[in-house]
């Protein structure tokens, strides 16, 4: 396994955010799902070495981040896109990525510039290299943040909500990029977009209250909802969760509503059922 988490614990004040978490991540793309405050970002920050855990162990790429020298070595092989990536507005796109590249120890100027151009091309920002960051749109900034995480072709890629602000075309490009990167390295992806998980991830982890409540494939997550997803013509009273779809029918999760017919479950259905919160949503 590329990434092993054992008994990981982290509290902010009296609030327990990670609760003795045990996880293993191998090569490929793993999606992290969970509602806000479930501990996804705290887990990713801990794995990215920007946050020290209160307890437990992490071993990433065979390295122990608790050891200073090994932590530095891990950082050399790590790509990290934080949830709220920062930008220096007065830097150009090229300068910002080059700055990060230098701090990632890409010291040869020619190689570094080549690498900066490569990652900018990967996120379709090559033609914006000389643009000041402050002039970029939100989606472009998100791609820029993704570009810096790709520097140095990292062995471990940690992406916290990477598709926020991307338009549909860019999301498709992003999926293609991540799925390609996931062929030979570990990619950890936190998202609220279940479609991304379904389209990209070989494995999914659902977190709730600082613990993992599901580990498996997206198909297994969807399969967990089999027999609990229904379509009906009337608003069901007893369903745990239902919403009105575009064709005027109701999609219900839980017990079969009166007149309900079984529907093919998706990742989102499995995820929502797992969280087990009664909510009414209408489309």
């Amino acid at each position, binding site marked *: 396994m590329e990434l092993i988490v054992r008994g990981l614990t982290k509290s902010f004040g009296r609030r327990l955010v990670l609760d003795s978490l045990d996880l293993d991540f191998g090569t490929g793309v793993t999606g992290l799902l969970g509602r806000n405050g479930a501990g996804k970002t705290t887990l990713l920050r801990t794995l990215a070495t920007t946050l020290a855990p209160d307890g437990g162990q992490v071993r990433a790429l065979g390295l122990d981040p608790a050891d200073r020298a090994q932590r530095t070595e891990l950082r050399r092989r790590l790509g990290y896109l934080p949830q709220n*990536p*920062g930008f220096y507005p007065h830097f150009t796109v090229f300068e910002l990525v080059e700055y*990060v590249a230098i*701090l990632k*120890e890409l010291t040869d100027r020619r190689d570094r510039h080549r690498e900066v151009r490569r990652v900018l091309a990967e996120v379709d920002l090559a033609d914006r290299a000389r643009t000041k960051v402050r002039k970029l749109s939100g989606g472009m900034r998100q791609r820029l*943040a993704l570009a810096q995480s790709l520097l140095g072709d990292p062995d471990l890629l940690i992406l916290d909500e990477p598709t926020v602000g991307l338009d549909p075309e860019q999301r498709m490009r992003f999926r293609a990029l991540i799925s390609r990167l996931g062929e030979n390295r570990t990619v950890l992806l936190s998202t609220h977009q279940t479609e991304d998980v379904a389209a990209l991830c070989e494995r999914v982890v659902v977190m709730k209250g600082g613990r993992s409540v599901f580990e498996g494939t997206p198909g297994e997550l969807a399969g967990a909802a089999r027999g609990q997803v229904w379509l009906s013509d009337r608003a069901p009273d007893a369903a745990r969760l239902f919403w009105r779809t575009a064709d005027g029918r109701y999609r219900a999760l839980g017990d079969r509503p009166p007149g309900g017919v079984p529907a093919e479950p998706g990742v989102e259905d499995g995820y929502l059922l797992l969280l087990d919160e009664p909510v009414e949503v209408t489309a």
Partner: protein
Amino acid sequence: MTGSLVLFEARRLLRSPVLWGAAALALAMAVAGSSAWLPDMTMVTIGSVTASTIVGAAVLISANLAAGRDRRHGLPETLGALPGRAVTRTRAVVLAAPVVGALIAAVMIAAHLGYVWVTGPVAGRIDVYEALGGVALAALAAGLGAALARWTPWLVVPPLLICLLAFAVAVNPRGEYAGGFLPLVLEHSLGWGPRPSREHLAYLVALGVVLAAGALLRHGLRPVRAVVLLTALAVAVPAGMAATASARSGTKLPAQVCRAYEGVSYCVYPEYVAWIPVWGRALHPVLSAVPERARARIPVVRQRVASPGAMLETDEPVTWTVWSTDPTLHQALLVGQVAGAVTGLTGCGTGRAQAMVALWLVGRAGPLLDAPPPQAWRPHGPDLPVSMKEVPMGADGSLVVPGQLHGAQYGDAEVGYARRLLERPDAVERVRAHWDTLTAPGTTIKQALPLLGLREEFPVKEEPCP
């Protein structure tokens, strides 16, 4: 990695419009400030360094922003996952910013000194240590900016500190109160002796190293950093004390050298010989209008260290160690003195032909102003409007002299008839022809008018000296 980061920071700073804008502003201010004076390179260098503090302020702010960058805009999270540590980023700024700041300040100071050198008859000498002090000041400012960024989270601190330093310099312009520890001492006079620029440069360089080491110490107490800081402190404190002690320690002024120019002898301090032709040209309209024998009356024109007190000590024509390019200031004083000397005019009284001729000579060299009001001649009188400008005397204040004849009294009639005489094409011939009569102490204006071909036009008050 440090080398790459140093180059990166240096390139960014070198492309900074703020720094180059500050340099352009500083250069413009230095040129504007120095264009009002004949160039005394000693003072020009001080002016250059003073203006370069604008660059220093910009470098301080820029270095502060660069060193504190990793705390802003949400970048800490991204940077935290990179192998390059904060100390590397600080080290890059404390290496790059002083070099770039020093370079830009050097360009600005060199451009100003070069401009002045090629545009004017230069006196004095460029104090290389003084000029290097300006360069070191910019480097020091970079170290200060980096140290502030590492030790204080507030962006308001650097501008506040700049204001505080500017205030400290402004209220202590002569450096009388621990001036050696200030970024610079604004004023200087030849009479104060040589500036302790070498000691001050050592102080600035050492203090810059102290600040750079101080910035790095934020990342942990390491033996090398501590040793560097203590060593630099051990240099900075004695150097500052030495600079303070030797400031205004007094000196014996150098012996003057004398040169003749158009029949007039000028005795000046050796570094000011280049200004003699300027004074000679200013006096040419006076000297060319009087008989050869009259020039013998002109005493030696001596240069004095600029001081209002010095003006009161002598009736001889004097030049100064500061000289305005405005002809109505120092030049007007000199012309008035020489006109008075050549006509033998002294003291008080009105209605004298001597005064009228002297004013005519003054009018040949420059604008002839209305006579001052009668109260202006009273010694130690209140400040009253006078027809002379306040003449700045460098670091030693300024001087107000009533009238245009070095304080010798005259009235409206003298000015009026002098103006009529200026209008006459045959004035020079008539004055030369009747020179002895016109400049005799007892000759009145009424007696002189027929000799000059003028008719009675203005009421003359003939009041002898009380």
